[in-house]
């Protein structure tokens, strides 16, 4: 701390208008460095923060030109800017849009924000510069930018992985699948029972692998593809989804009922995939001999729509209600209910990208209701959201 000196008693003996004690307390309590200069550019007062920021004792600064606190390369141009400010001394930020730096006594630099204001007018004018060290903010900005670039890169990696998966993995698998299938077509029942078994397992494995690759592709694309947000009539979307599921619906004699549904802002491809996966699951996870009954409904929330797919299937133990949305999480053996365990992960990813959430409620009499929300006008509704 300083000795009890009133810094507002200025070098040439002028007095400020406020009681010294009060002004001085305010002055030194300010979180920013405060530097008062005369029209000539000479420093007349600094506060405690200025000493700490720049590493000078206050008496080392009094009476010297303000330019001592600036990088050498800017000192000359600053003298001109100072003269311009004196002609139009409004309160404002200095160097808007420029990177400003202060220079400490030890010659090290640090980034600053500076606000200017003035006291008095005419030849007695005093200019007050409020100096804030923004090192922390700059560092955070740099970190944020680095993280953004890293995220962009990893999304690109994922997108190129999706491409590799689609092309390079599918190609050899198509060969395995084709020839195993031909073996099955031509030689089933013509070799011995073991051979038939082996062929069956090979065909089955290949088919699951193909489903897996397709689902993995869906999963990575739902996270990386650009969103095309438009007004989607969910009635039409559901009609399309149901018609693509018609073979399964007919096969299971399923009863599907649909309430009137709203028009919402979403990416139609991804929203379609959510419905497709939820309805497929509702058709798949039914007890043997039970006719699937599926009901689709919508409810208005304060700032979103909630869409629900209710079924009379085998239900989900409440313990697993969260876990079913994790990738590759399956609650049943392949023999009971086929699948690779990515369908609900795809739903979760798609819904969350649209700014909503997804969950499952289990009824006491069995069956489950999957619900998700879609916000009315997703924040930053453009095609570049991550």
């Amino acid at each position: 701390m300083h000795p009890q000196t009133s810094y507002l008693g200025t070098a040439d003996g002028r007095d400020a208008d406020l009681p010294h004690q009060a002004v001085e307390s305010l002055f030194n309590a300010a979180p920013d460095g405060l530097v008062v200069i005369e029209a000539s550019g000479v420093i007349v007062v600094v506060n405690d923060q200025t000493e700490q920021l720049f590493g000078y004792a206050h008496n080392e600064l009094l009476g010297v030109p303000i330019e001592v606190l600036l990088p050498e390369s800017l000192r000359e141009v600053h003298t001109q800017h100072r003269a311009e400010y004196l002609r139009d001394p409004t309160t404002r930020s200095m160097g808007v849009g420029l990177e400003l730096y202060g220079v400490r006594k030890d010659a090290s630099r640090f980034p600053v924000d500076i606000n200017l204001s003035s006291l008095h007018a005419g030849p007695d004018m005093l200019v007050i510069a409020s100096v804030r060290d923004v090192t922390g903010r700059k560092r955070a900005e740099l970190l944020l930018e680095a993280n953004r670039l890293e995220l962009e890169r990893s999304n690109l990696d994922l997108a190129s992985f999706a491409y590799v998966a689609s092309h390079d993995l599918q190609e050899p698998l198509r060969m395995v699948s084709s020839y195993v299938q031909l073996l099955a077509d031509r030689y089933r029942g013509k070799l011995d029972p073991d051979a038939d078994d082996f062929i069956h397992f090979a065909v089955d494995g290949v088919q699951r692998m193909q489903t897996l690759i397709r689902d993995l592709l869906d999963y990575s694309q739902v996270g990386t593809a650009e969103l095309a947000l438009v007004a989607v009539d969910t009635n039409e979307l559901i009609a399309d989804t149901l018609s693509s599921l018609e073979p399964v619906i007919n096969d299971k004699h399923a009863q599907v009922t649909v309430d009137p549904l709203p028009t919402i802002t979403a990416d139609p491809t991804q929203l379609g995939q959510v419905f497709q996966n939820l309805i497929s699951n509702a058709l798949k996870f039914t007890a043997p001999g039970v006719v699937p009954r599926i009901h689709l409904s919508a409810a208005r929330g304060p700032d979103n729509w909630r869409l629900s797919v209710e079924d009379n299937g085998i239900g989900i133990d409440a313990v697993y209600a969260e876990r079913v949305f994790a990738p590759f999480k399956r609650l049943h053996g392949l023999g009971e209910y086929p699948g690779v365990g990515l369908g609900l992960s795809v739903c979760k990813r798609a819904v969350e990208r649209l700014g909503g959430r997804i969950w499952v409620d289990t009824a006491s009499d069995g069956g489950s209701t999957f619900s998700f929300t879609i916000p009315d006008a997703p924040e930053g509704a453009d095609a570049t959201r991550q």
Partner: protein
Amino acid sequence: MPLDSSPIQILLVEDNPGDVRLTAETLRTGKVANDLHVAKDGEHAMAFLRRETPHTGAPRPDLVILDLNLPRKDGIEVLAEIKQDDSLHVIPIVILTTSAAERDVLQSYELKANAYITKPIDVHDFIAAVTSIEDFWLHIVRLPRA
């Protein structure tokens, strides 16, 4: 075509032996007598078409089935060269590729491919696709005689 009894000459440009075999087996049991010639890359295909050594005795194909993803000279280059060659450009070219990319489809048609087919993943669908190429190009349409 049915009036002419000489077999139809088909050039299959394909580097995947598995697909060559599938295509060959399908065409062998087709409606129309045909001779299948196989080129394993783009350079081989152009040498065959231009009857360069050692293909001096090569027949002129009535139909080319062309994969896009080929070693050395790729399918797009082969397509462009055939369509720019006054002595070859009337030969119908069917693209049969794993690519479903829109830019490949567009570029192929811009270069005057006569049809573009993405290889179906399921083997029965693949056989059906080759059968329909055979049926349409060798049976239904009338091709120019060299």
